[in-house]
Structures are given as structure tokens and as C-alpha cells.
């Protein structure tokens, strides 16, 4: 149940009350980075999430791709700024550029590939050491559609995730399984307070687009 906008007129009481009495969406923006060994399906997950597509022969990522997607959770509009990185070890030296300052990370492995799971653990360690202290990390066991030839057991990964305070889901970019859900779970876990933008602490940046527009609207009349 992701990417849903509110429907109906049953405004929830949690939304901010505006001076003129109308309710106002909260807008938050988060930087999210995808990490994980090459070919585990990072780009495929992003493509599924952002465009609802899957390409069997998805090209390898060179450098990085930047995409955005927006989710609505209750009264909050969460905009993800997604950095999709290249997985090969050779490009490891570029990774800190992408994860530094990120409020969320999805570390991806391929359930058919034990090495990719080990690599995912290394990424988690590195993030814990080097990234923002409050970064929300999700572990994604991708290619879940190939679960009949899996080598990484669900329980094993689940346990690892629990021990390390990670969100965890098995996903399939191919079928779409759990793809929106993992982003939604992250969005839910991210702090959406609209307090001052404290440096370093990964709180989402609040946007005021709608607010400004509303105002323009009023004063133009």
C-alpha cells in the first residue's frame, strides 16, 4: 500500500491546522542511497519504484543515477531523492560521496548469491561507521521471484537485520513484490518533524511549495 494520496473528505486530525482553517500537507524531502554489489538489482528496484518498469537487460550503472519519487503517508508528502550507485568494488571510492548526508539507505543483496549478502553486511558496517548516525537502513534481499534457487535463507537475513536494527524485506524488482513497500517502510521510519533543520541529524527538509503557492494565490486575488 504505497504511493497513495489521501482520498475523501475525512481530514485526519493529525494534519497541521492552518490559520485560515484549512489543513495542510507536510512535505519532507529525504536523500536515499542504494548500495550493494553489482547486479543485485539496485537500478531495477529504483526503476520499478519510480517508473513501474522492469528491464531484463538493465544496463550496469556507470557513475550514478539520480531520480526522485514522492510518496504520501497520511498527511505527509515524502519526496525521495534517490541516488543509485554503481556496484563494482572498483567504484567503491565514490560511494562516500553518495551516502554522506543521506537520511536513508537501502542495502541490496541477491538472494541467490551468498557473496552479495556478505558484501551487504560490509556496506551496513561502513554505513554505521561513516554515514549520518541516525541514517535509516533497510536491507533488501532482491530477486525474491527466484526463491526456489535461493542460497541466502530468509531467516538468516531477517535475524541479521534485527541484530543490526535494519528494516528488512525480500523484494523482487521483476514482479514488483515489496518494492513500494520497502520505500514506504523507510518513509514511515524517517523523522518527519518540521523543527529547525539541524545540521547532521537526518531530519527531512520541509518543503513549502504548496504553502507558497497558496499564498501567491491569496495575494493575487
Amino acid at each position, binding site marked *: *500500500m*504505497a*504511493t*497513495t*494520496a*489521501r*482520498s*475523501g*473528505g475525512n*481530514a485526519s486530525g493529525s494534519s497541521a491546522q492552518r490559520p485560515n482553517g*484549512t*489543513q*495542510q*500537507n507536510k512535505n519532507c*524531502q529525504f536523500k536515499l542511497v542504494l548500495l550493494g554489489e*553489482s*547486479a543485485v538489482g539496485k537500478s531495477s528496484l529504483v526503476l520499478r519504484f519510480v*517508473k*513501474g*518498469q522492469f*528491464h*531484463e*537487460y*538493465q*544496463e*550496469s550503472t*556507470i*557513475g*550514478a*543515477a*539520480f*531520480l526522485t519519487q*514522492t510518496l*504520501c503517508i497520511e*498527511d505527509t*508528502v515524502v519526496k525521495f*531523492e534517490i541516488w543509485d550507485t*554503481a556496484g*563494482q*568494488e*572498483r567504484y567503491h*571510492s*565514490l560511494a562516500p*560521496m*553518495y551516502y*554522506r*548526508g543521506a537520511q536513508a539507505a537501502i542495502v541490496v543483496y541477491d538472494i541467490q548469491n551468498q*557473496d552479495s549478502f556478505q558484501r551487504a553486511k560490509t556496506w551496513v558496517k561502513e554505513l554505521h561507521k561513516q554515514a549520518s548516525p541516525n541514517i535509516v537502513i533497510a536491507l533488501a534481499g532482491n530477486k525474491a521471484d527466484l526463491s526456489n534457487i535461493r542460497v541466502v535463507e530468509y531467516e538468516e537475513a531477517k535475524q541479521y537485520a534485527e541484530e543490526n536494527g535494519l528494516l528488512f524485506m525480500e523484494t523482487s524488482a521483476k514482479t514488483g513484490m515489496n518494492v513500494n513497500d520497502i520505500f514506504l517502510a523507510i518513509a514511515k521510519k524517517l523523522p518527519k518533524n518540521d523543527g529547525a*533543520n539541524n*545540521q547532521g541529524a537526518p531530519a527531512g*527538509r520541509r518543503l513549502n*511549495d*504548496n504553502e*507558497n*503557492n*497558496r499564498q*501567491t*494565490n491569496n495575494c*493575487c*486575488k
Partner: protein
Amino acid sequence: MNNSVHYNTNQGVQIGSEESPAATPTTFTNGTIKCTHDGVLLRKASVEHIADLNTSGALSIIDYESPHRLYIEWRPNDNILVADDSQDWAVVDTIPRRSRTISECKAFNIKPSPEAIAANKPRIIRTRLDDLSTIIVTERGQVICFIQKSDNFKHSEFFFQHGNAEQFLKSMCEQHMIELTGSRLDGVAEYTVLSTETQKLKRTFAELNIGDMKNSESKKEKGWMRNTWSGLLINLPDIASSVKSSTPRNYTSRNVGVHSCSSSSEEHSPMDGEIENLKEEDEKIVNTLPERPFVERTKPLNEAQWLEFHTVDGRISDVDRIKEIIFHGGIHFNLRADVWKYLLNYYQWNDTEIERIQRHKEKYKEYYKMKAQWLSMTTTQEENFSGFRDRKCQIEKDVKRTDRSLDFFAGEDNPNLMVLQGILMTYVMYNFDLGYVQGMSDLLAPLLAIQGNEVDAFWCFVGFMDMVFANFDIDQAGMKAQFRQLRDLVEFSNPRLFNYMVTHESDNMFFCFRWLLVWYKREFSNDDILKLWECLWTRLPCPNFHLFISVSILDQQTDVIIENKYEFTEILKHINELSGHINVKRTLENAEAIYLQIKAADNLPNNIRLIIGEPVIDNGNSEKEEEQSENGTDTADDLYEVVRKPENDRRQEEQFDEACERSMFLNYT
């Protein structure tokens, strides 16, 4: 009734419509399409529509006779077809049977086709225009979002895949359904939905032809469109941006009295002041570049010409001339396999026929010797050899997803994939230290497709890798050096863009990473990349000409980047999305023109001279004065050392890294 539509609120959404309390079916009859646009993706809506998210459909405004109201309707298209997976994030054509009209806005009285009405799906999203308060346009006109009146929440959001919402909204404006009430420089715009009464009133005014009102409206719209819409041009291969930048730019200082500008607008909008300021800033830079010369590509090297260059004993004479022809026109398709072998240093121009046959034989032997090395590796050996295993594993991953859209590599179990893999594995044995790095398969695939032969492709690949191996340094030193050089070139040739980038923390040039790493492979179609590469392989007209391709593309994108006020991330996104939309011919011509323009400049600084292989000078005019005076050397060679002296390098590198950091960790405040 023939055109009737039965609509059941239980199956769709209909918010706040008094005529249709939930569970009471409403009948919609005699709809007239006021405007419609196809290829519109549903991005957000209420939960019932989750299955249709990211689905393409048609968005329309329909006037029904009963109930007599205007409705916004979105109907999903049934056939979803992923047409093009050759490009990273290319727009996917989801409308197989419809022509891709950018907009199909119709004015009045066009009846929806009977099938369209008959195919009434529960999946339709329909809401009364009256129930909406506002329409918000974002993402440079491609995304529109409907805000509902009742609670000011989003009702739904749509993404215009083809073109943008401009025509659709314009048509609504013209029909007085909405009114532009706010727009911002970053392209966010807001329209207020007019009440039925206001609509009537406006229509009456319009009929009375009250000129003033109309004028002020259209003026507002124009200014807004000019400044915010230009970003959309990236999706329409090179139209306006190219028209603008094809006029040679002339950066002269104001004192000379020549007004330099690239925008030729006459109307004035609030934005113009700002543009004016930017221009003035440009002109402060005293950087007198001569006129950009006109360059035109010529015909490719053809068979008759090629034969003429063969001497009796099979040597190739007048190599310079051949390279010149290739640089300016490329190579005829049939000759590519042959001529590339020379360009890529596999065959030697000066070899006689006999020598060439001999070389060919030796290279074959050498290749198979190396191939045998990895083929004969036992499982135990492999298990104990992680360096080899890693390389092998990465190759297997990449071979599967390299150029699969080319016929040559298409289809399951295509034998050419094994050949590709074989060559890359052999290259690992040829140069184990470099081994295999992602991106290399991209460089090899077109070579193999042209050579059609494993051994020849391998040796051509070796030649190509010799030109670009520094791109694959583990510490990215080669890439960083190129970013610096590119930065210098942009600074010198395009100060307007350069200044913009500096003030928008994008001057690290990092967004050109993919361009430079695989020599624009991902940016052009296969045909175009062959043209581009063979031109670059001539190494004419100067070393580092491949950087001028970047300078040329950036030159063509200057207006788009500046007018849209792109920040680092947006520039990166924009650059990535240019893939498939860059005109190779114009890019090459423009690149050469810029090179000639720079080369003819009076005060060519030594850093630029080094990049383009001009002799460095020591006459005090150079901008690198301090470096020269410090050292007091006279000869060009010594100066070369000075310019490259380690501390200088380190300082530059530090500055560069700093710039890199700055723009990567933008503080969103």
C-alpha cells in the same frame, strides 16, 4: 442512448459530488471532450487505484450533458508495452497503437469515440472540476497535481510522458476553466480552478473581446513559459536549444562595444532583469574569444579513396590525410572493420602487405596463448585465486546486460555473448592489474559487432583501452584529472556556464562521469557512437579532443541549465536524461568549432595550451604569471614542469576535491 456511459461510484472514485451519494449509480451521458492528452501516467491517487499507479492513460476534461458538469477523467490504456530498454531512463512508449501527438487538445464539440465510451472501466478516475481548488504544476511542466477543495489535499497526480502539460493547461485556460495564479522561477506553477459562475463570466468577457484582459493574461503566461519551460526541450531532441546555440557566441568585453548574448528575446518579463544581470557578469570577464568558425562535417572515407592510399606493396600512404578525412567525415560502413584496425594500433600503417599478414598471424597466436591460460584454469586454482574469480564474476554479470538491444547481441543464448566474455576474460590475462572494470564491456561490444571476429576485436580493444585506461584507475585519478581539464576548458570557452556552475556548486564536472568514462557510449545510438569514436580515434585535431565533446554538449545545454536554475543534482539528472537526444553531427561540428575558436584566442593560458597540445609560452601575458615568475625559467619545457609541479597538482587536487564535496553534500537550506 448511444453515447451513454454508465458509471458506478462503487467502482471508481468520486469525491464530494452531491449528485452521486455513494452507492447510488450515476449515469453519465453525452460527454463532450473539452481537451485531452494521451500518455499520462497516474502517479498518485487514492488507494483503490494502486494497481494503476505508473500506468499510462488519457487525461481529459469532459462536459457531460447529464449530469451537466465538467469532469476530469483519466482512463488507463490497456496495452502496456515496454518499447525501448536500451536507454537508462528513457521514456517508455506505452501507447503502441496511437500516434505520439504531443498534445491533442481540442477546442469544442468533439465527441468521444463510441469505443472509448463503451470501454468504461471501473478503473477510470473521474472527479468534478468544481470539487477541485487548484492545479499545481511541477517538474518543469511534466507533473500536474489536482488539489481538492474540501480539505486541500491532493486528489491525484499525473505525469505527462510525452511533452508536457502545457497544451492541456493552455486549453483549459482558454476555455476559462482555470486561471494561472502563481508561478515560480523553478517551474512550479499554480492554477486556480474557476467556479462555474466565474467561468461563465470570463467566457462572456472573452466574447466581448476585452483586449486588455486577454493581453495581460497571455503576457503572464509567456514570461512564465519562456523561463520555466525550456527544460522540457531535452525530451524533444534538440529543437530550441540547438537553434539558440548554433549562432556563434562571442564573448567580448563590454568596452569593445560588442554586446554578447545568447538570448534574443524582445519581450520583457520580470525574469529579464535577472538574465540581464547574468549577462553583465559574463561581460566582466575579459576573455576575448574570436568568432566561432563554421564547421561542417564532410563525406565519410569511401572505398575508392581508401584504395588510393594503398601503395603497391600494401603500405598506407599519407596517413595524415586519411586521418583528416576520417576526423571530418568518418568511415564508410563497409570499410570500418579494416580501417579501425589501423586507427586502433593493431595494424601498422607502414607495414607492407606481407608484414601485415605476419603480424596478423602472430597476434592470433598470442591471443590464443592468453586465452588458453584462463581456459585451462582448474577449479582448485580458481578457488585459490580470488583476484581472478572476482574479475570473472563481474564479467559474467556485465556481458548479460551489454548492448542487448543490438541485433548482434540480442536474444537468449546469443553465441556472441560468449565471444564477448571470452575477449574480456582474455584481456584479464593480458592486463591482470587493470583486469576488468565496469564500463569496459561497453567499449568492447561495438568493436566486436564491427569486427565480427574474436581475435581482431580483442586487439582493437587493446588499442582502445590504451587510450582510455586511465579512466579505470582505482583511485579515480584519471577521471579527476579529466574533470579538472574539462573545467578549465569550460571556464575558458563558456564563462557564462562556468560562472553559473561555480555559483551553483557544480563546477566539479562530476556529472560528466559517464560521458568520459566510456567515451559517450551511453549517450548515443550505436550508429552514432561508431561515428563519434572513429573520429576520436584519429586523435585529431588535438590531444584531449574527447573533452571537447563534453564542452560541446554543455555548450548546447547552457541555456537550459541556466534558465531552469538547475542545481548539481538536477544537472546530473538532466545530463543523464540527455541520453539518446544528442545530435552527433552537430556535437562534433560544434566541438571542432569551439576548439578552433579557443586555439585562435589571443591570450591562450598555459593550462589550456597543455590540454590542447599547444606549446606553452613564457611571455608574461599568460594568466599563470605567478608560476612563471616564481621559477624564472625561460624554456617551454621547463615551464611545462613548472605548471605540472607536484605542489601545484596537489593544491589543484585539493581544491577540486573540495568542490566535489561541496556539491555532493549540498545543504538543502
